[in-house]
């Protein structure tokens, strides 16, 4: 959608862009804080205890207290750590999630029956771009772990590579299957083309492969060998203190939220609503985005609940799972998706 701007307002456009960008970053950090709160409360429910309950009502301000604590901690650096890698790793970790945020639509509004997706940019290859950019975080993790001059972090670093290399392939193939069936790589098109028959019913195997590979990509249990607390103290982020740790921690949770958005958009039908809601003037503004947020929260709760309900794999079993079990399933799903796409298209 293009907005026509009168000429006397043209010099203000860069300022407007900057403010909108900052507001979006603020929203996403608040969203990450909400995800951390949800994790702490949900894990407490699974273990029949209460999570944060004293700071603010229902513990909602606990994250603010944690952020203040992280800001006021002393910033330590190990003696022989590599300065270049150690200081600049946060850029890669956060840069990867913000670049993902750029192309991901967070909702849509229906004005007069016409759909306007809310995305910062709309690209023709947005799914491929999101895939590629989410893999940049591996550089950040390796820079931290290798530059820390710590044996535990080193073990975590190499485990990280083994895991990421194995799981990018099934992730990519399952995304390509969805794109092949729909006929476009634009995430807005994939989401709208689902209508009311979601992709999870058409490609259940693809959804399963995508979900498992996404959990491995994000580094969540049962795939968090690089930060396994029982063997490696804190794994790759052992030597980071204060806000450096805070930024890495937030990057992981933002990645989790964006991953849930991907699952909701690609497989759970995005923001599609029945026709009568879309044509309604008031509901058309809030219902599609609200529906999408509900689906995202549901996927988030599944991801968080899985972390606290299952044990952890060993690193060689993780690699074994990806190459020997997920890759053939992903290829099988690709064949099925192409066949189904031809049948539906014809």
């Amino acid at each position, binding site marked *: 959608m293009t907005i026509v701007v009168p000429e006397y307002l043209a010099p203000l456009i860069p300022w407007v862009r900057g403010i909108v960008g900052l507001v979006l970053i603020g929203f996403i950090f608040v969203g990450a804080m909400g995800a951390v709160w949800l994790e702490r409360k*949900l894990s407490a*429910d*699974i*273990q*029949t205890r*209460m999570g944060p309950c004293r700071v603010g009502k229902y513990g909602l301000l606990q994250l603010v207290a944690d952020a203040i604590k992280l800001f006021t901690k002393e910033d330590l650096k190990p003696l022989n750590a590599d300065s270049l890698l150690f200081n600049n790793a946060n850029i890669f970790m956060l840069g990867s999630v913000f670049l993902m945020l750029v192309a991901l639509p967070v909702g849509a509004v229906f004005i007069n029956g016409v759909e306007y997706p809310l995305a910062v940019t709309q690209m023709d290859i947005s799914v491929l771009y999101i895939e590629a950019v989410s893999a940049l975080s591996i550089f950040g993790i390796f820079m931290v772990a290798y530059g820390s001059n710590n044996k535990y972090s080193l073990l975590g670093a190499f485990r990280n590579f083994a895991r990421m290399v194995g799981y990018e392939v099934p992730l990519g193939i399952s995304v390509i299957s969805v794109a092949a069936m729909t006929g476009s790589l634009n995430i807005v098109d994939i989401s709208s083309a689902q209508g009311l028959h979601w992709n999870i019913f058409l490609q259940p195997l693809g959804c399963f492969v995508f979900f498992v590979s996404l959990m491995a990509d994000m580094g969540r249990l049962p795939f968090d060998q690089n930060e396994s607390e029982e063997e490696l103290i804190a794994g790759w982020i052992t030597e980071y203190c204060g806000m450096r740790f805070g930024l890495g921690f937030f990057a992981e949770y933002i990645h989790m939220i964006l991953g849930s958005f991907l699952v909701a958009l690609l497989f759970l039908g995005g923001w599609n609503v029945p026709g009568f809601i879309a044509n309604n003037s008031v509901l058309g503004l809030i219902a599609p985005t609200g529906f999408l947020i509900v689906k995202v929260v549901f996927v988030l709760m599944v991801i968080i609940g899985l972390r606290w309900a*299952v044990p952890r794999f060993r690193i060689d079993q993780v690699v074994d799972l990806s190459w020997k079990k997920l890759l053939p399933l992903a290829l099988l799903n690709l064949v099925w998706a192409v066949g189904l796409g031809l049948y539906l298209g014809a």
Partner: protein
Amino acid sequence: MVLKNIKYAIRNITRPPVTRMYPEKPSELSDRFRGLQILDKSKCIGCGICANTCPNAAIKIVKAPIAPGSSKQRWFPQIDIGHCLFCGLCIDQCPKGALSSGKEYAKGLVKWHHKDLLMTPEKLAREVDLEKGDER
């Protein structure tokens, strides 16, 4: 595959939490809980068996008046809470049964200076309020 774990986890979500909201709700103590000892001054003969039995030598026998405001003094035990194990051996070994178990374990016992931790016979007989002197 991992379904039983997930089912058990979901079933736990519906159960009430087991956390105790201390200090708003004090913990429930069993009947035989051993807190600070209670001294019965009328039964104590000042023999010192409790002081000999204590594994940590936390009991000293000191002179104290037999009632508040009285001028007659006898020998009574004084317990150093900083060293007491709350094992109850002094209660068991007293030949006259002058010591028994109270239920105080935190309120009025947590003090800042060491001299406040010496529970004099007046405090043990509960003639003096325990919580006074609870300042930082």
